[in-house]
């Protein structure tokens, strides 16, 4: 399974933290293994592969997510939900799926189990590339399915420090990408938004692991260079052949709040049918796919 919820996924190793390796001057000078092949990669290509590695592994996937939100005073709240994902198959005739290069439309279904007062709450997303996503929310206690209009994607994901866009994936065409540095383990990519008025940041820098193409750290900063938010992949496991982030965090430096997401029961390529991702499932949860 690929971690839908990790904006970016982590490296195979837990701790080769970017700073350490990027400070190693030898790393910059000495060609490393595999560099011959990588040398050809442009920033856009790296970003495309990172996007694919983060959001499009397998044809579908499932995970149980434990989300812990800790505020600046250390007060914790937890949420638990199951997430199902299905990629819309590529147009007929194309073989991109096999080459892992497909990054098209997707559907997500989230089913909340905890805390008990939000038990059975559901969230359905149809992610589009050429227009705003469709989002529906089911509030069982009000017996209400509600469409949520997407004005922008920089809203909080269910009250956490992750934004909706961190979870669903930011379009690679929304930013210009520059490869600032290639360290022993990472590509360091600087991203500048094409439309700065739509986002709260002025730029973000991503450290992408050179082998897995999983982003292990992302720093969003404002025009004065102040870091606003920091994403980190805290744990990576290879599941079903795919390097998968199993633990990640997002810290909002302005509020001091941090959200950690832990993934369990990760599975890929389950063959989840498309009809699961409809409004009907919101009211009648598809149990067999959730447990």
């Amino acid at each position, binding site marked *: 399974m690929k971690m839908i919820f990790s904006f970016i996924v982590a490296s195979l190793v837990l701790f080769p933290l970017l700073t350490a390796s990027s400070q190693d001057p030898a790393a910059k000078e000495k060609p490393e293994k595999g560099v011959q092949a990588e040398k050809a990669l442009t920033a856009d290509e790296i970003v495309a592969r990172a996007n694919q590695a983060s959001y499009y592994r397998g044809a579908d996937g499932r995970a149980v997510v434990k989300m812990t939100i800790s*505020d600046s005073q250390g*007060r914790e709240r937890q949420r638990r939900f199951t997430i199902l994902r299905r990629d819309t198959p590529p147009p007929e005739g194309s073989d991109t799926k096999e080459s892992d290069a497909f990054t098209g439309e997707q559907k997500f279904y989230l089913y909340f189990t905890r805390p008990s*007062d939000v038990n059975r709450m559901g969230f359905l997303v149809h992610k589009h590339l050429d227009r705003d996503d469709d989002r529906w929310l089911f509030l069982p206690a009000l017996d209400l399915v*509600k469409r949520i*209009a997407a004005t922008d994607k920089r809203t*909080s994901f269910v009250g956490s420090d992750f934004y909706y866009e961190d979870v669903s994936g930011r379009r690679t065409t929304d930013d210009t990408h520059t490869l600032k540095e290639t360290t022993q383990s990472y590509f360091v990519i600087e991203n500048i938004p094409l439309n700065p008025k739509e986002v709260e940041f002025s730029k973000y820098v991503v450290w992408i692991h050179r082998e897995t193409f999983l982003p292990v750290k992302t720093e969003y900063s404002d025009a004065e260079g102040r870091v606003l938010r920091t994403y980190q992949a805290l744990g990576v496991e290879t599941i079903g052949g795919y390097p998968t982030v199993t633990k990640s965090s997002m810290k909002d430096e302005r509020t001091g709040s941090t959200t950690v997401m832990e993934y369990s029961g990760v599975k890929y390529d389950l063959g989840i049918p498309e009809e699961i991702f409809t409004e009907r499932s919101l009211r009648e949860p598809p149990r067999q796919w959730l447990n």
Partner: protein
Amino acid sequence: MNPRLNPSTYSIQHPRSVLVAMLGSTLLLAILAALPSVWAPARSVLSEVTVDTDPENMLSADEPVRVFHHDMKERFSLADMIVVGVVDEAHPAGVFNVLALTRIHRLATFAKTLRWPDPADETRTIGVVEVDLIAPSTVETVEQAGLGAVRFDWLMAEPPRNEAEALAVRARASRIPFLDGTLLSEDGKAIALYIPLTQKDLAHRVASELEAEIDRMGGTEEYHISGLPVAEDTFGVEMFKQMAISAPVAMLVIFMLMLLFFRKLPLIVPPMIVAMVSAISTMALLIVTGNTIHIMSSMIPIFIMPIAVLDAIHIISDFFERYGETRDRVATIRSVMRTLFAPMLFTTLTTAAGFASLALTPIPPVQTFGVFIAIGVMLAWFWTITFIPAAIVLIPDRYLASLAGAAPADSEVGRAGHGASVMGRLLSRVGTFTVERRGVVLGGALVVAIFLGLGITRITINDNPTRWFDPGHPIRVADRVLNAHFGGTYMGYLTFEAEAPSVAATLAAIVPEVSELGAAGASILQKARDLSPVVDDGTALVSRLAEWAAEQLDAADDESFDGWETASQLLDRKSELARAFQQPEVLRYLTRVQEYLLTIEGAGGERVVGKSSSVADVVKTVHRELFLADEAQYRVPDSAAAVAQVLITYQSSHRPQDLWHFVTPDYTSASVWVQLKSGDNQDMAIVTAGVDSYVAANPPPAALSAKWFGLTYINVVWQEKMVAGMLKAFLGSFLVVLAMMIALFRSFWWGILSMIPLTITVASIYGLIGWIGKDYDMPVAVLSSLSLGLAIDYAIHFLSRARSAVREHGSWAAAAPIVFGEPARAITRNAIVVGVGFLPLLLAPLRPYQTVGFFIALILIFAGVATVLILPALIGLLERWLFPAPTSKGASS
């Protein structure tokens, strides 16, 4: 007094060493005080000048109300805020036009950049709390988005492109209760930005930056900057203006008065030196001892200077009355110092005692103020009895000769017949009148005292930091304009906290249900017993158990999974019940309290609370929008789960943290933002009393305790402490001074008598304050005890002279003309010098200084008049009791 112990004796013999000692010690203190400010390494051993403009420090840092205030501010992530109100009176739509909104957008964007490195920790920044900024571009609306969709969106992400868009901003804001009356004015014409600060002492800096940006932007709309932090911080800046203006002017006024009385410069210079030396040394001592320059302590120099010259005036006028006879300066000064030593010591001690009594108040800055003035007064006394004789010895002969005839201009020996003795003639007539018509004097005094005393019952205890500024000050203008347009800019916070059940009660309640859960249930009960001794209350127990059960569920194998699933859900439901502020009936109760708040009336029958906001408003607003903006759905839904789901929907917005300003993440406590229309303590007190009685009459549906916090509330608490504390200080100093009077006159009745003019004066002044409707505020409160210590001086001088005169002349009728000669003139001169000496405080830009200056002057002049009118009449009336035995001296003369 034994002359060998008299410091004056030494100074007459060694005048130069006294001069060196005085200047040397003052210079040393001044260097010690100033050094750390100009030379950093000295800071490790010496205290730097620290300025404290925070009125919160009127209470000590460990005062429960302050501790609670800070705990709650942290609990609800609240910051002190600057309010920027924007009005455009010229445009029919107010500020809802393209140009004004464009500039408001720019100002909000600018405000976000007002952050600076934290001097205490370079890795952090201080300034504006960007994420909590309330401005059209930074707040959200929840609204319909077509096709039954709901949308969270910035109210004004970009400046409007046309007038229709500008008006749409207003229409959208008016639908969000949290914004209507807070960001958007009730009349729909004005906007207010709320700019939260990491610390309130940045208010002045942030406000200045905003003003600069407003100037750069231009535009026809007006920007008014307000909010308690600005008022308080601006006060600090004005405080220095006070010290820079009033203190030098006071010096000048005293100089002019002395010049008027004595006419000769060389006579005036030594007392002025004593005044300056005393004021400088005391302020230096204040700094060296690590005390802060505060609203109160900044007035110390202006208090010390007039008091410091008093004793010197006595010495110099006495010296020249006698010098003409002997032409022996050393012998004359010795005899003058012998006569004056005791009265000067006593008047100094009583003055010092009056100020030192302020140490009995529970208000630290007032204590510092009182104690250091007492020290300054004692210092002034010491340099007066040492330096003044030394100066007289050091004055070159040729000067002294020219001064020989220069007795005080108002005395009969000096310049008689040139109209300069108007005061003398007037006083002598007064003397005759009080003796012959003592019934009229006493009856009149009684009537005046009763009439004014009745005013005391009319005193209203009230203060308001905004009113510390003149009515024309920009802060006052902003206050008027903003509170006319908006719900109110003075924030009080009402918190409700759910009282947690005991561990035992909780355990008893969950055991039956958990027991039925099989293996998982048994493990849970074991865990519950393990946790019981370590958790604080039942709520914590259930919450810990629920977390633990969830962990067990994560680790459960297929076999035990269902059991843990059921157990975990059960515990979750139990812990849900502890979340009081998700319960519909509790939220509805908050709504009723908020409705009640709006009905509270102030002293004048006007509405005190303009608006209030709570988590209930958030729930109702989102609920309405979820149901197609149907006004009937503006309500709290019927289950706790529905509330939780509405709130998680609300949190899927740009500002999820907004919720935590109203409720804690565990939903066990909530704060209601109460916007008051005035910062009057009186109004805040009315609101707190009203809520207390409302809660008593309408108990909450769950065990909730209601408490207040916020700066507006803290002001009320310190005011209450101050009123009680000042009464204690006044009574304390009254008793101390009375004891000193009894000791001085070695007679209980003489002691009582000496207190009478002063008591009548203080009662009358406070009565006057009641009659004219002046609020009893901080400066008025401190007046009582400090005026007591000052005004008793007249009684001391008058009565000691009266007593010796009666002994000499046999009867009061015979003695009165003597007492109404030189002694009465000295008293009058002193009342004028000290009283007028305080008047430069009227030039200070801030009201509290003006109040202190005006009333101190009034009290001193009043006390002087009361002394020369009432005391002689009373002596006449009580002559038989006051002079019981025929005095041998009097009989013989």
